[in-house]
């Protein structure tokens, strides 16, 4: 390896030189930072300044540079030197913009700036240039699991973008639920009449597409590998096994209708004249094939009156049935009511609803149905009883506030969507524990059987065979910020398996998932990270000789990137890694690191801060801030000139999950008076970019109180704060409040050791 040459660059622009003594900063970089080369510049991000740095890299052999100017989030295009290790000292947003320009403040502002210069120098010396993931695969074929509307759309769109697709469908034909529809809800102007379901056309396009290889009557027996190099075993009807190499996967396994048998109060199963929405589509298809009107199943007579029951087994606050709204059923019932009105306007057609939800252009369709004479009544159905060849529908009219009833030849229940997500891996992981806890005699097998239907992907991942699930069994998706993203890199879910949606939404979803999958394949081929650190070339490395096989990294990795090898050592699949650093934060023996982000890069910064002695009345507070939300919020606080305490020193971290407790103990041992952690909201409505990172980090850090007690320190010295990117105005206030609390404590007894 060539010899390291370190350099520090101090920018004087943006009034930095007016607010701080630049000579002092140069001294800090030279004396404390021990940089080989220290330069100052009037305007570092200008073409001239950048040229100066480039010249140093090429002619002076600079390999490590600390750029002390603005925030690392600013001027990233100008300061783009991929061949060297680089750190940034935040003198602008982090110092001069958050401090008042007064004579009294000058001294503390200068100290702050000098500390940030020392920290940048210390950090860069602990870094190396990331070479990119070498263990990569460059397969550019996409696997789509599920041949319904979503799956077919993903396949066609990927093919259009020039990628090969393997499409696997469990049943004997493509089309899924859409193929069972007589017609579909209108998709174009004037949104008034039901349209052809469009399946035949898509199937024909897939058949004619040489990029798309279709497996029917096939399931996924095994999925092994990582983005860019998945190996998939496909079980075909004949009993044989086909193997495909794919680069990324889209799971579009869709939904089933909520089982209407669970709604005996609505007469389902008691009379054939109560059907669910799929049942009505079947009746309509059969009737159209025979050229007859839709008939009553009980006696084959044409239907003269029909009642649609919305939200059947949905939006149930009691928790017995589905708790959510499936979103598509109102439009579907409107469409089905139209079937009747279009064949005979005299058919009595009533839709009983509590809230009619017709997203998008459904409103036009709703109006068109009203114009056709479909009656919409706001009412809650309590009971449907068979009554000869008819049904009596008891309901409460919510407008007239009275219990009433209606007679109908046919009753249609809008039962809603249940996702086909495969195995609930969290429940399976918890099952043995539950079974152990249960009194003996209870068969633990049953527990697993009820929560574990057959797996869809059969992943060989340590963390389970299927995608993680969120609320109500829908597959994982970062629904707040990045809805296409899942916790399995290179595997995307699309369509109703992800959340309830109609055909149009599913097609849009499938197109988006195809784009993300293509991006993931391409990034994997280049050895780069996928979202949210897209393009990051660093990846975790482990010093196995120091590993104690505690398995914390394999258990905690939110993305299932780490398996275990035969000797039970962690086996990193770098292509599956999102570079959040949760493994690094978890590792109790600190053997996991990234080239440009490690226990050392942060530890060196903590040690580089000059901690004044206990008589100075200048406390030091360390802030470890999530770089995704908290750090930008701090930057924006600076841009808005919200001032905060001069005794804090902020170090950005990739995620709260990457915070290793050694940093906190080191800081406290080094004489810091307090440590503040800033991470994203966790829990069900999390905002963490890495989904579980902040939660795992918080859990780990909740144990830090014992450490503090062991050191005879007040437990309030470590504070955990949930920060959103929008908190730029309130954040400085919270910092100041915390700083006031710290100042109320006696100085840390560890100063000066």
């Amino acid at each position, binding site marked *: 390896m060539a010899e390291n040459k370190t350099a520090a660059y101090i920018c004087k622009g943006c009034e930095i030189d007016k607010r701080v003594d630049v000579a002092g900063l140069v001294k800090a970089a030279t004396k404390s930072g021990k940089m080989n080369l220290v330069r100052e510049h009037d305007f570092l991000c200008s073409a001239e300044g950048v040229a100066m740095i480039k010249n140093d890299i090429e002619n002076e052999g600079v390999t490590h540079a600390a750029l002390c100017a603005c925030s690392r989030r600013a001027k990233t295009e100008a300061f783009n030197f991929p061949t060297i290790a680089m750190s940034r000292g935040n003198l602008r947003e982090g110092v001069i913009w958050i401090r008042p320009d007064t004579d009294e403040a000058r001294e503390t502002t200068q100290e702050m700036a000098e500390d940030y210069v020392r920290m940048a120098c210390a950090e860069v010396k602990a870094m190396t240039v990331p070479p990119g993931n070498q263990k990569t695969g460059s397969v550019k074929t996409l696997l789509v699991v599920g041949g319904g509307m979503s799956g077919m759309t993903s396949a066609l769109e990927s093919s259009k973008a020039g990628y090969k697709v393997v499409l696997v469908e469990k049943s004997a034909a493509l089309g899924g639920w859409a193929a069972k529809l007589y017609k579909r809800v209108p998709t174009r102007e004037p949104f008034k009449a039901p349209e052809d379901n469009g399946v035949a056309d898509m199937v024909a396009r897939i058949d004619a597409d040489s990029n798309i290889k279709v497996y029917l009557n096939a399931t996924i027996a095994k999925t092994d590998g990582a983005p860019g190099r998945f190996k998939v075993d496909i079980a075909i009807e004949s009993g044989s096994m086909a193997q495909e190499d794919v680069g990324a996967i889209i799971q579009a396994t869709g939904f089933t209708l909520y089982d209407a048998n669970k709604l005996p109060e609505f007469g389902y199963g008691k009379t054939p004249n109560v059907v669910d929405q799929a049942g009505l589509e079947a009746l309509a298809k059969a009737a159209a094939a025979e050229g007859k009107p839709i008939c009553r199943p009980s006696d084959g007579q044409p239907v003269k009156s029909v009642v649609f029951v919305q939200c059947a087994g949905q939006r149930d606050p009691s928790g017995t049935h589905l708790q959510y709204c499936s979103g598509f059923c109102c439009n579907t019932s409107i469409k089905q009511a139209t079937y009747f009105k279009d064949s005979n306007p005299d058919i009595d057609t009533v839709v009983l609803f509590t809230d*009619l939800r017709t997203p998008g252009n459904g409103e036009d369709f*709703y*109006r068109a149905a*009203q*114009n056709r*004479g479909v*009656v*919409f*009544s*706001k009412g809650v159905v309590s009971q449907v009883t068979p009554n000869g060849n008819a049904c009596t529908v008891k309901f409460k*009219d919510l*407008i*007239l506030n009275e219990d*009433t009833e209606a007679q109908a030849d046919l009753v249609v229940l809008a039962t809603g969507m249940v996702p086909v997500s495969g195995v609930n891996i969290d429940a399976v992981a918890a099952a043995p524990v539950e079974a152990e806890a249960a009194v003996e005699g209870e068969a633990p097998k049953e527990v697993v059987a009820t929560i574990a239907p057959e797996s869809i992907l059969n992943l060989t991942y340590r963390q389970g065979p299927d995608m993680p699930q969120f609320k109500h069994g829908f597959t994982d998706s970062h629904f707040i910020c990045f809805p296409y993203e899942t916790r399995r890199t290179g595997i995307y879910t699309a369509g109703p398996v992800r959340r309830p949606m109609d055909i149009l939404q599913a097609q849009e979803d499938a197109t988006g998932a195809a784009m993300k999958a293509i991006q993931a394949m391409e990034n994997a081929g280049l050895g780069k990270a996928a979202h949210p650190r897209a393009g990051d070339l660093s990846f975790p490395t482990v010093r196995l000789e120091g590993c104690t096989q505690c398995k914390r990294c394999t258990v905690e990795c939110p993305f299932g990137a780490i398996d275990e090898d035969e000797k039970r050592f962690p086996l990193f699949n770098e292509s599956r890694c999102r570079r959040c650093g949760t493994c690094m934060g978890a590792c109790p023996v600190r053997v996991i690191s990234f080239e440009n982000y490690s226990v050392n890069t942060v530890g060196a910064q903590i040690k580089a801060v000059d901690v004044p002695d206990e008589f100075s009345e200048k406390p030091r507070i360390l802030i470890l801030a999530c770089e995704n939300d908290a750090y930008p919020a701090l930057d924006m606080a600076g841009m808005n000139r919200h001032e905060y305490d001069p005794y804090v020193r902020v170090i950005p971290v990739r995620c709260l999950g990457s915070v290793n407790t050694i940093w906190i103990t080191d800081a406290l041992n080094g004489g810091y008076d307090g440590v503040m952690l800033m991470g994203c909201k966790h829990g069900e409505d999390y905002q963490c970019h890495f989904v579980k990172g902040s939660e795992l980090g918080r859990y780990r850090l909740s144990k830090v109180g014992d450490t503090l007690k062991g050191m005879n320190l007040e437990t309030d010295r470590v504070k955990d704060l949930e920060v959103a990117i929008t908190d730029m105005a309130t954040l400085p206030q919270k910092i100041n409040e915390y700083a006031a609390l710290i100042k109320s404590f006696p100085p840390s007894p560890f100063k000066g050791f």
Partner: protein
Amino acid sequence: MGDMNTQMADRYKNNFLKEIEEQAEMGEWVKMCMQCGLCSGSCPTNFQAGWDHPPQEIFMMIRAGKRDEVLASNSMWMCTSCYNCYVRCPRKVPVTHVMHGIAEYAYRIGRSPKNQPTQHLSKTFWDNCTKYGRVNEVKLTQTLYFKDGIGSGIKKAMEMQSVAMGLVKSGRLNLMEAVGGGHKCKDLKGIHAMLTKAKELEAQRKAAKATPAG
């Protein structure tokens, strides 16, 4: 008139919505209501004046086939035609016109509420106006005041005495109207001819609707 009610009830059987759609003016709008309740919320009379049902409920009752309750409801007669509901309806339903259409239909088939004051005013106003070609204010007031007998009529007149005197003094009320003097319409015959023609046209239109098609 009672005959017409039975005739209509028989013809439409249980389909009151269809009856309103075909027989009441603007009745075809009833089906377009989406039950948001904005009309009821916008009504300035706020049902404090004794409305039987807010407009949203009237629409729902029509769909639920509550024929007797709707036709006998006083709601349509309480409308002041401020048009707030019409302006605000997100479905652009002309609620004011629909209410008037239903009121007129109920009256036509003899099912409107009996002794309903605003209905009485409408009838009196219309008769007075068409008879004289313009409103004879003294006679209109007389008819209204003495609707419930001589005693209450005199009492009401005495209560309003000072107002009446003020109107007379400022020339806004001519007492001669009581005896055939005062303001007159220039061409009473012409107006009567116009009204007769209009009645004829309307009768034709309604007769066409009242007889079942085919």
